[in-house]
């Protein structure tokens, strides 16, 4: 396993630059582009790829904390921030936009969380141990993964891909002092030219963590297992089939920032795919996949003291889908065509147990069995000129929502007597990206337009309590489609030992969907301040910019740094919630003779542009210091890797703007990881 931030997935730096630095910020630690074989060159030009592991050689020295959670990996990305409701299952934010405005997929599969309170982002249903990389595309660069406004993240599973490696395996373990997290994992793989089989298992268990100053954060424990199997078989030289199965289960997960915990979050994710090198002679890399996943999420408040009323809130999400894609290459044009579709069923209920046990149970549907059908067509053309290149892409999709449960339909009709059972939309996305080079300068610029349908909660949520602004939320099935026009610009100056990049993007979002207070409504949740209805604002504006740099001080020492600024306002000039203040990150990395070390600082300025109407309070400035040390040993041709580190060295007590209800983050934490791989 290894993790470093590589900037481009495509072959060579020249290609990589094409759309690489469009967004986000920094050329972080190691500009170490993945060498992709030419025939698998995918024309999905991503802004960023976080390499989590590579199927072949372990390369741990490149990674500051090898067995960290996927959440921590994503947080290390320059373009992603994470909303934290506890120690587990953080929610990714990109370009100041969260889940409903992002397209998040696992190996191209659409998966939707089963929690009405966003306690289970898709990223919580996999583990770093079975992933190879996170492909990140900002804005419409993420449209290949689905309809999006803010961008797309695809978590790619780790596969052996018919390399003749025979049997390989590894064992890994880690311990963290702050929350006594124990991690045990292992994998066993077989691969030859005809067949491969990858198996992986990992177990994590953590107790409550302590914030800076040794203050225990109650209900921050969690326990998680993840098993995965994937196998491939070559039918012929140019044809193969593959199948994957992931079972992920988290139990006893505390959410200190919320009023409820989770007793069970379980996902079963499976797919079969067919791959053929050529199709009709002209199309190449034809890949088709059928998939299915089912998620169960059970919220639980039985361990919380003094709940005003005990409630059970289970939720289910089931998705079946497919995609089929192929490339078409000519001398100048590289096309990618993709057909995809999914059918999702989202159902969630709430049962409350009255304090007077003679009264009947109180029951309602919070997600009224919403069936979402989506069929889309995506195409892109990457046109190569001498020094410049142009990428055109589009996604056209048919999207419909149907409320399948009559109980739920009648519930919503309390608010919307005229509502229809089914709501259909046609979603469009277009994007143009241009790249040019002049001496050591790289210029990237692009204009895009994209649309998205409201999420299940935004369209059909029924009294969803949001503990951040202390309001009950109600969806509106008649919401307009949200659309966004964005422009992006980046300039990179690059020399072998030195690199600096400035990037900026601006989103003008029409029909921006957000909860607006309706003071005529009565709350449902005891203690809630009011009721908000999801509403279209005329527009909202988001602006993100960053400056980043790298300097190779010597062969062994390297410095990296990044600073970013974000601003988000609505049509009245009011601040939007969850917009980052000025934040920065800087690190010095050392690597020599299989020994690695790093020292990094992470911080943010005071959050001045907050909005109390969304429950935000001013978050103070902070900075934390971390260090790590690693050594790689060779034992009988096998690899033994040991890494230790300290996070939040000065035991600072702090919280960032993304910490739900300002729950404090972890204080000083020592970690130790040991990996042994048998090649």
């Amino acid at each position, binding site marked *: 396993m290894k993790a470093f931030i590589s900037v481009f997935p495509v072959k060579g730096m020249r290609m990589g630059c094409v759309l690489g630095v469009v967004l986000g910020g920094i050329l972080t630690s190691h500009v170490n582009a993945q060498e992709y074989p030419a025939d698998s060159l995918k024309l999905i030009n991503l802004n960023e790829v976080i390499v989590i592991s590579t199927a072949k050689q372990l390369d741990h020295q490149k990674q500051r904390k090898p067995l960290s959670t996927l959440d921590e990996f994503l947080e290390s990305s320059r373009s992603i921030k994470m909303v934290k409701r506890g120690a587990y299952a953080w929610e990714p934010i990109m370009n100041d936009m969260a889940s409903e405005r992002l397209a998040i997929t696992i190996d191209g599969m659409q998966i939707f969380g089963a929690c009405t309170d966003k306690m289970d982002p898709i990223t919580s249903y996999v583990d770093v141990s079975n992933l190879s990389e996170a492909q990140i595309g900002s804005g419409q660069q993420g449209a290949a993964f689905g309809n999006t406004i803010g961008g797309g993240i695809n978590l790619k599973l780790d596969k052996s891909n018919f390399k003749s490696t025979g049997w390989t395996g590894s064992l890994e373990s880690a311990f963290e002092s702050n929350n006594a997290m124990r991690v045990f994992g292992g994998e066993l793989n077989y691969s030859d030219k005809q067949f491969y089989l990858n198996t992986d298992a990992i177990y994590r268990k953590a107790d409550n963590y302590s914030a800076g100053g040794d203050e225990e954060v109650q209900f921050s424990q969690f326990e998680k297992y993840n098993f995965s199997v994937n196998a491939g078989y070559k039918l012929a030289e140019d*044809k193969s089939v593959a199948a994957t199965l992931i079972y992920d289960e988290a139990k006893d997960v505390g959410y200190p920032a919320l009023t409820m915990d989770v007793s069970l979050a379980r996902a079963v994710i499976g797919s079969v795919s067919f791959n053929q090198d050529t199709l009709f002679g002209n199309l190449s890399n034809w890949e088709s996949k059928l998939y299915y996943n089912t998620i169960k999420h059970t919220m639980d408040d039985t361990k919380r003291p003094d709940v005003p009323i005990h409630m059970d809130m289970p939720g289910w999400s089931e998705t079946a889908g497919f995609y089929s894609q192929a490339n078409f290459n000519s001398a100048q044009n590289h096309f990618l065509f993709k057909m995809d579709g999914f059918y999702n069923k989202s159902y969630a209920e709430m049962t409350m147990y*009255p304090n007077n046990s003679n009264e009947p149970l109180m029951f*309602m549907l919070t997600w009224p069995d919403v069936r979402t059908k989506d069929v889309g067509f995506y195409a892109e053309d990457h046109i190569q000129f001498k020094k410049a290149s142009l990428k055109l892409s589009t996604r056209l999709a048919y999207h419909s929502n149907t409320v399948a449960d009559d109980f739920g339909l009648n*519930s919503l*009709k309390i608010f919307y007597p005229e509502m229809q059972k089914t709501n259909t939309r046609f979603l469009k996305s277009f994007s143009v990206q241009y790249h040019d080079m002049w001496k050591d300068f790289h210029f990237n610029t692009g204009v895009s337009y994209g649309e998205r349908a409201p999420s299940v909660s935004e369209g059909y949520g029924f009294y969803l309590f949001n503990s951040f602004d202390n309001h009950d939320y109600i969806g509106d099935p008649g919401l307009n489609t949200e659309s966004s026009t964005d422009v992006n610009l980046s300039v990179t100056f690059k020399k072998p030992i030195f690199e600096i990049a400035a990037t900026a993007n601006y989103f003008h979002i029409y029909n921006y969907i957000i909860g607006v207070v309706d003071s005529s409504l009565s*709350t*449902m949740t005891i203690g809630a301040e009011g009721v908000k209805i999801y509403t279209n604002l005329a527009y909202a504006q988001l602006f993100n910019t960053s400056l980043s740099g790298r300097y190779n001080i010597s062969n062994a020492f390297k410095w990296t740094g990044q600073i970013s600024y974000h601003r988000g306002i609505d049509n009245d000039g009011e601040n939007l919630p969850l917009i980052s203040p000025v934040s920065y990150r800087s690190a010095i990395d050392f690597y020599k003779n299989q020994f690695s070390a790093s020292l990094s600082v992470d911080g943010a300025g005071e959050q001045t542009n907050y909005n109390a109407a969304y429950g935000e309070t001013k978050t103070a400035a902070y900075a934390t210091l971390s260090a790590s040390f690693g050594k790689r040993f060779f034992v009988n041709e096998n690899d033994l890797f040991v890494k230790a580190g300290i996070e939040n060295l000065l035991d600072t007590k702090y919280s960032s703007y993304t910490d739900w209800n300002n729950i404090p983050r972890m204080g000083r934490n020592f970690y130790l990881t040991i990996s042994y791989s048998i090649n």
Partner: protein
Amino acid sequence: MKTLTYIFTILFLSVSFVSCSDDDDNTPVEVNPVEGLAMLYKVEAADHTVQFYSEKQNLEVGYNEIYIRIKDLAGNTYVSDAAPSWMPMMHMETMEHSAPHTSLNNTEESSVYKGHIVFQMPSNETEYWDLTLNYTLKGEAKQEVLRVTVAQPADGLKKTSVFTGSDDVRYILAYVNPKEPKVAVNDMQAVLYKMENMMSFPVVENYTITVDPRMPGMGNHGSPNNEDLVYMPSSKLYNGKLSLTMTGYWKINLKLLNANGEVLKGEDVTEANPESSLYFELEF
């Protein structure tokens, strides 16, 4: 090419998501006119019987819909021209009084007569209700007096209110619908009578009853889009909308306003005043 076809078939199948139609064709069938009703009483006369039906298993304090059928034993037929009328009476130790009731009318099935009675109080060992029924059978006037038992509603929930308004008039307000409340906007109905004297209870017309449902078990939260009950001359009922956002125990707080909008009974629900003195209770 074979695999191709196969793959395309799968893709095609997955694209054409099956959409099942739920429409059932309801072909009309012969229905028993008293299907689903319970026969509470049966009066046996020489050549005919009188049957009393209700949706409930017994008569209760509050609003009771009562169905009557008269069976001619000779022809084994049900009579549709009996023109029945009735008078409920309570015999208390010190006095007698009647109860609000409608006339009895033929229903769609002309041999079934229907009306309702709002009983204000239950019967007990020494105090009882009876029902005097007058009707004609083959041109001959008949009378039957039937002693009936009136119980308090088994669920113990308050669905009838007998009170004196601020205009010093005695009113009887009774809950009619929804019989099976749903999490939805329900059609709500109630009846309102005033007590002129011991024997006369005319329907009160053109008043308004405001509706404010609350869940006392959950911080006394309310619900949106309720509509006040207003008088419908056609049905002589007060009609409005009752929205219930979840199952459970609800207290339906009411206020009675006369035609001039003056409050005769009931108060607004506020933080300081969690309930009105005029209310119904619901559980589902």
